[in-house]
Every structure is written in structure tokens, then in C-alpha cells.
């Protein structure tokens, strides 16, 4: 993990962000068949490894769901990628800034 992160382009409006966090949490739980309620996912907990316990196959699955739902194509060619999946909140912020639908 790097701490040299660039600021996000457009932070989501608070109310919007909360609704979108709940929506994306629901998408993740549904897509991965996780044994947890969407509302129980801590938005600041890591998605990978020790946090929610996801691995790269899950991340690929989430990327597909997010691209279908919001028209966001994820790319792994930057340090940004590790940060995007750093937590549910960061994923949602990225989606907010890049969504096309």
C-alpha cells in the first residue's frame, strides 16, 4: 500500500454518498453471496484480505457489477486501484466521480 495518494476528483455529496454506499454494499453482497447484511459492512474496513475477506476473483466480480450498473470501467494501471478497493467508501467515491450512468 502506498500513502502517496492523489486527491479524488469529486467528493460525493454526503447524502448521496450514504445512499450509494448502501446500494453498492447491496450489489457486493448479492454478487458474491456473502454471509453478511449489506448494512453490516463497515464502509471504512478494507475489502481485500483481513477486512471483508475478499480476494482477486471477488474484485473482478465487483468490477463487472459496477461497470454494468454505473458504466465505470476499472483499470489496474495505477496505484489508484489499491486505493479504490481500500474500502467500500473509497470504491463508492470512485464510482461517483466516474459514473456514466
Amino acid at each position: 500500500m502506498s500513502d502517496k495518494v492523489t486527491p479524488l476528483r469529486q467528493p460525493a455529496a454526503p447524502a448521496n454518498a450514504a445512499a450509494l454506499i448502501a446500494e453498492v454494499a447491496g450489489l457486493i453482497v448479492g454478487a458474491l453471496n456473502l454471509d453478511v447484511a449489506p448494512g453490516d459492512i463497515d464502509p471504512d474496513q478494507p475489502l481485500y484480505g483481513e477486512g471483508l475477506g475478499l480476494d482477486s476473483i471477488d474484485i473482478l466480480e465487483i468490477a463487472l457489477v459496477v461497470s454494468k450498473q454505473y458504466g465505470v470501467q476499472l483499470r489496474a494501471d495505477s496505484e489508484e486501484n489499491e486505493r479504490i478497493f481500500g474500502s467500500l467508501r473509497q470504491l463508492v467515491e470512485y464510482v461517483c466521480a466516474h459514473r456514466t450512468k
Partner: protein
Amino acid sequence: MIAHTSPDAVIAYRGGAPVRVPQFLADVRCVARALDSAQHVLNACTDRYHFTVGFAACLASGRVSLLPSTHTPEVVRRLADFAPDVVCLTDEAGCAIALPRIQYPRGATPDTSDSTVPAIDAEQLAAIVFTSGSTGTPVPHRKSWGRLYACVRAEAELLGLPTDAGCAILATVPPQHMYGFESSVLIALANRHALCAERPFYPADIAAALQALPRPRVLISTPVHLRALLASSVALPPTDLIVSATAPLEQQLAAETEQRFGAELLEIYGATETAEWRLWPGVTLTCEGETTWARGGHIEQPTRMCDVIEPTGPGRFLLHGRVTDLVNIAGKRSSLAYLNHQLNSIPGVQDGAFFHMEEARASHTGVTRLAACVVAPELDAARVLAALRQRIDAAFLPRPLLLVARLPRNSTGKLPQEALRALAAAN
């Protein structure tokens, strides 16, 4: 060591830009010097070009590359028991593998004036590949350079790769996985093709990396990645050949892949564990569906075998492991016996078993996880998972992991998969 005869030949691409033979040979000499006194090397480089240079540096200097199926702390510990002098070659600053680490040299401008290609003896031990086995100790498979070379020469021929032009080979599988090692690294070295340094992950990355390569270009992939590509809306560039392995691809997906890429798709079936066996004199095998019967010779009455057996010729057969014991998740192989051994080795776990969930869930990648029932009164599920994570590849972590009072063992102590599924359904 390499089949590329001309100094102008391209051996790799990085970001679409060619890396030629003199640069490669100079990088190989540079890494061989950096390896110092170690004789065994765990090559953890994530960049495929760095991995290939590391492997070739070992080869050129008489060292052995160790290729375990995963890099969990438990597997790394076993590797150090196996070869106490092992070092880890890494190209990542944050590498957490608990071995003496050697950083892949970067930034140095090595001397490219010497273009002598090292000659490697066919008998030389090039690599030791490990499979998980069933008792907790990884099983080593020794691979000589001649064996590896002959295997990927044959593979190139089977795949119909051109012999008069270099292909650019892009792979979505890691170079440390046997399939990626053979079909993206060795196949390029032994047949004058060029490997792509990047390992693209997301569909958009795969499309962009392919687009950056000259034709003829080849994509080495798996059903998981191909399903994800097809499910995404990205435009796929024309490609000359798609290769899929690790698991069979459904007919419909195979046809769609060929259509979207305008390319032929070929599938490879293989397993490191597979070895040909010879029958005891007088014994014959007959197969009825998945069941195999042995009779004759010293066997007094026909006996049903517990393993999946494939006769390959008179007196010979392949052993494919115990029925239902084999596990293959997204191309990573293990066995229930191995996973159960690791689970039951966790302090505080009194009893525990992995099992296959029955229904295949509809997902884009088509991956179905294992589940596990565990008796561990002193622990919670998170603690058991954290301990398992130290021991087994993340792909095999159970989902769900259920803590139960006792396992549904029958009167002989056996655990039918059916009983485990029923217990999980009741929870």
C-alpha cells in the same frame, strides 16, 4: 536457453515497446550476480519479464527455481524446511514473504555488448514445482531443463503457433502458476516468441494490453477471465489465438469468445499431479462411468477403486485423485484432504471439514467456493478464518464457514459430503 538467434529478435514487450535479446541477456547476468550464494530461489516477481529474467538467471548460473502453488506463510515455512538456503527474488517493495529477500535490480544500465546465449544442459535441474499433496507437506516435482523445453516445443506445435514469425504472448495468469509458467514464459523462450511483461486483470486492461501488441498476438487465459471479458462491454481487439486452461470452458462461452475476438480458441487439459502408472502384472482395469474396477493377478475378487482412473494403454493408467476430493477453484488446485489437514492443524479447532456446496451460483466469473463446518468452542469464525488465511490460498477460504457443536460423522467416523450440506442448510 533461448531459441532467439538474432540479436534483433524481440523477447518481450513492456507497454507495447520491444525488449530485444542483448538487453535480456544483460538483465540475466545482472540478476544472476544479485542472487549471490543462494542455490534455491523462490521467484515472486509479479512482472512477467522480471520473473522470466529471474528464471533465466537461475538457469544460467546453475540455480534451481522453486515454484510452490501459493505463497502463504505456511507454504513458505515448508519451503524453507525443504531448501534452507532458499531466497526470495521480488520486484515489489512491500513483499511480505518471510525469507531472505533479494530485490530485483532496477535502474542499472547493464552492459549489453555481450550477446552470448548461455547453453544449458538438458539434464540440468531447472525448477521444482510443488503441489499441495494431502498430508500438509507440499509434494515436489523435479523438472529438468530438457523436459520443460521439450514440453513447450510440443505445446507450440499443438497450438499451431507460427514457426517463421514471432508471436506476442499476453497472459492473464501469473508466471508462477504452472500453466502461466509453461504457456507464457517457457513457450516464448523455447520458440522465439515474445512475452508481454504486464499481467492485465480487468477486462479494460486486457483489451488495452492486447491492442498495444503487434500481431500475431496470442491471449493465454482461463475460463474465469474469459467469462469476465465476455460479460463486460469493452471492445476486444482482433487476436490470432486464444488459449484457455485450468478448467473446461462451456461450449457456448467458447463460441462467443471466438466470435468476439475473431480468433480460434484452443483448450489445454493438464495437471502436474498427473503421472502415468503401470499396472501390477496380470491386473486389468475396467471402467464403468466414473467407477473403475480392478481384477485379475493377485486380486481375488473384483474390487472397486476409490480413485478416478483413466486407462491410457495396455497396462497403463492415469490417476486423477480420489473421487470428489480434488478441488479446482479459478485454476488453483488442491484437495479436500489437504485443506482439512490445514484446518485441523489450527490450535483451538477440535474438528472441521471442507465440502462442496451443491448448487452452482450464477456469477459472472462462474466461480463456486467451498464451505466448511468447524467445531471450535473457544474461537469465533473470524479467528478461524484469519488462521486459515496463513495456511491456504485465499481462493479456498470457506464461504460460509459455519461454527457447529459437532460434525455429522457416521458410525464409522466418516463424513459424508451430503450430511455436511444438510448441516449447512439447517444453519
